[in-house]
């Protein structure tokens, strides 16, 4: 979405100087009024439909009142599910796969609200001498998705988030690779305790960490027969601990009431139908298609589709070279591993489908070995160079010239007389000699050809003897 939820400011606030991506409306200046961004409603309806929710035809906003410096109006325009309020979507579910079994996670509601600004601290939140506010983010459309307590482990939470991200990315609702584009408040409640909400979790990895920490903390309290307080805690990523923000007694009464500046409006059936019918392919359907169309195993299809960009990348490759399984193998193993280890997204790397395909073709045509390809790939990812160029520069092309290999064999035989004698007696010892040639060429010599030529040479020697 290009603009904020209630004004015309760009929603692309990242990297801008603090408090420059603002206007009177998103700064909540006196006298300003919100105007709903229609595209946001459209996207929210689409997301609610993708999450199997009941879509509510009546769109109405409520004010959530509380004082906080990141809220320029000291209230947030949001949606509400009580006092006559209705979120855009209710009663949906998402299906996730846990240990090869399918599991439904219920969605309580999906609603739209405006993002507050952003507070920055010097060091940890509880020790900062001051707080700075940046309103660049203020008023960005947020889609809040609330699940019911159906998750049983930190890992399940992470799987769900990945799935949600993939669904939303497939819808084109947002770009999940952007910092802060997807945020999560996680609630933990274990038997004998009470519900604790954790805020300020920045990534999927952190969700798992924060939840694991919190479960241990709560178990520990209970084992010492101490009470788990119903409270909101802050995840400190650096120290990897949760810190209490406020207890239930300190929870605000948000004094929700209908936003008088935004009249109720009704979505008609045709609008909803149009939105739903224009919905792009969703991950589950895509997985099925990958299985059928490309003959991929379910596991491959799932791994690829878990990240829309990876799936797109894969399909681009297949378009250029119709070898889906080979491409899938490379993407799933080497490409993903490299990206993961270097904390990169596929689009942040310089790898292009064209180059990856080029590389696989080179293997298939015997120009390089798979081993060499594994060495070439990281450089392709980092520099964006053509694999041919890399191979040429580094002189990695396979040596298939008989003359060249014969010359090498000659040297190897001279240097390893003992091994030659062994090989004359025992066929198996030939491998050592092949290995020596490969070593001299750093793996570039054609292994089969080398093997045959050595055999030939040995035969010659045998005859000579």
């Amino acid at each position, binding site marked *: 979405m290009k603009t904020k939820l209630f004004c015309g400011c760009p929603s692309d606030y990242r990297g801008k100087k603090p408090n420059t991506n603002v206007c009177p409306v998103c700064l909540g200046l006196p006298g300003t009024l919100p105007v709903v961004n229609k595209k946001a409603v459209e996207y929210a309806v689409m997301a609610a439909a993708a999450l199997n929710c009941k879509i509510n035809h009546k769109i109405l906003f409520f004010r959530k009142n509380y004082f906080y*410096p990141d809220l320029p109006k000291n209230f947030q325009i949001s949606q509400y599910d009580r006092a006559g309020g209705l979120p855009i979507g209710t009663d949906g579910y998402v299906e996730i796969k846990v240990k090869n079994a399918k599991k439904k996670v219920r969605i309580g509601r999906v609603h739209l609200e405006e993002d507050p600004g952003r507070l920055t601290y010097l060091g940890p939140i509880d020790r900062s001498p001051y707080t700075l506010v940046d309103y660049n983010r203020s008023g960005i459309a947020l889609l809040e998705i609330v699940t019911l307590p159906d998750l049983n482990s930190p890992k399940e939470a992470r799987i769900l988030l990945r799935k949600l991200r993939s669904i939303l990315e497939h819808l084109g609702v947002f770009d999940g690779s952007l910092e802060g584009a997807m945020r999560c408040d996680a609630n933990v409640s274990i038997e004998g305790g009470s519900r604790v909400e954790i805020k300020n979790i920045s990534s999927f990895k952190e969700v798992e960490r924060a939840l694991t920490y919190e479960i241990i903390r709560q178990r520990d309290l209970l084992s010492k027969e101490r009470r788990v307080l119903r409270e909101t805690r802050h995840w400190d990523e650096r120290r990897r601990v949760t810190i209490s923000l406020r207890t239930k007694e300190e929870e605000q009464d948000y004094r929700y*009431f209908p936003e008088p*500046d935004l009249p109720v409006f009704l979505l008609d059936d045709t609008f909803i139908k149009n939105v739903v019918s224009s919905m792009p392919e969703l991950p589950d359907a895509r997985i099925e298609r990958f299985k059928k169309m490309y003959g991929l195993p379910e596991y491959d299809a799932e791994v690829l589709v878990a990240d829309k960009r990876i799936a797109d990348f894969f399909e681009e490759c297949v378009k250029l070279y119709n070898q889906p399984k080979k491409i899938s193998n490379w993407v799933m193993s080497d490409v993903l591993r490299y990206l993961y280890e270097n904390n990169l997204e596929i689009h942040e790397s310089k790898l292009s489908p064209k180059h990856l395909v080029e590389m696989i073709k080179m293997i298939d045509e015997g120009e390089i070995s798979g081993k060499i390809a594994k060495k070439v790939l990281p450089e392709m990812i980092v520099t964006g160079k053509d694999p041919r160029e890399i191979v040429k520069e580094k002189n990695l092309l396979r040596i298939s010239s008989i003359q060249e290999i014969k010359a090498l064999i000659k040297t190897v035989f001279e240097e390893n007389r003992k091994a030659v004698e062994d090989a004359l007696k025992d066929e198996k010892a030939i491998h050592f000699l092949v290995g020596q040639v490969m070593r001299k060429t750093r793996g570039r010599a054609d292994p089969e050809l080398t093997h045959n030529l050595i055999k030939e040479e040995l035969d010659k020697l045998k005859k000579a003897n």
Partner: protein
Amino acid sequence: MLSAREIVSRVKSGELKVTEIVESTFDRVSKTEDRLNCYVTILQEEALKRARLLDESASKGKVHGRLFGVPVAVKDNICTKGVRTTCSSRILANFKPVYNATVIERLEREGAVIIGKTNMDEFAMGVSTETSYFGPTRNPWDLTRVPGGSSGGSAAAVAAGEATVALGSDTGGSIRCPASFCSIVGLKPTYGSVSRYGLIAYANSLEQIGPMARDVYDCALLFSVIAGHDPRDSTSVNLKPKDYTVFLREEVKGVKIGVPKEFFGEGTQKVVEETVWKAVHKLEDLGAEYDTCSLPSLEYALAAYYIIAMSEASSNLARYDGLRYGYSEEFTDTDWFTYIAKVRRNGFGPEVRRRIILGTFTLSSGYYNRYYLKALKVRTLIRMDFEKAFKRFDVLAAPTMPTPPFKLGEKIENPLELYMCDIDTVPANLAGLPSISIPCGFTTSGLPVGLQLIAPPFREDLLFRVAYTFEKNTGYVKEEPEVI
């Protein structure tokens, strides 16, 4: 005193210069402002500069605009770019908006000259202009009395000739009350007909900006300029702009007037009752028909109004926290909540604090259903009562205020008594209906009495026609206050 209509025509004919008009207005200001205190900010230099520019374009034959050269006063809760807009509150005493309200853009497009920003009850909360941080405005008809409120500065300025016309805002009577007390014409338009973009909110679901003038024609003219759809206000209705002056003809034959008995309840002074009835009979003489009627749900109007207005206000005024603009304090070594509380305690006056606290209460969980939700239900009932009445009648007639203007300080210590003054004006706000107050006579001691006319939604044309006919056949608008 020239009317806006006369000014525009004389400037067009070259008979008068805008500079002359504006200078004579400031002449008047310099004579009466000390006693009246109509303005929070006087824009003499800016207005004269603009007058010269307008004269320059007039000399080139370019006289465009329905308010060309007309001195306009603007209530100080309407944002004016670069000109402080205070809501007569300490908390905004130094606040300069970075943008113009839609109505200001429309005024400027039509060649109006803004004379100054007028005094008001703090955040439009009051009926007497006494709660202003900048001191009370006085009634031009009797300096010991209040001009009404909350648009008291606008009304007094127009009545005393410190401006030709003015903008006010009306949440529960804030245009009509001072119009009545100062013997001028004031319209609270249909909810949604004038953009609220740039109006600093008190209670969003109730209020409208509206015109205030010395006669019906000017009121209709100013309304024609400010009304119309604005995409920046989602509650603004998509209607074609109209020239309301074309509806002004002396014609009330067959117009059915309803007189609801609830507007003459306890607390209505006899003199008001008699004067308003006299006006109704006058309209009858002119060809209208009337009958009495009843809108039983109005019994709860005042309570519903205050609950809704205070609830909304408690949220609207939350943004004034001294962190970004407006009044601030030294940040001592405390947490920000303590700081914000201090700023708000010292920045808001007692009436504003009272309404914020009450509104916070009525919205809190456990009380929401009992107060806010119930008030919304009453509002629906009131709307239905009006709809029913308008099946029988074209317009409803009533007193604007239950009493003539009261003395300064007389009621300020008793908030409930002040709230009671709104009893006849809040119904139109709750139902979103257009309502006009016009001068309809004076008490024996010379205090003005106003007649209120209420019409179905978007029937301002009808209000103007009835009001115009009444005005043309009575002499009240020709009366001028003594202060002049």
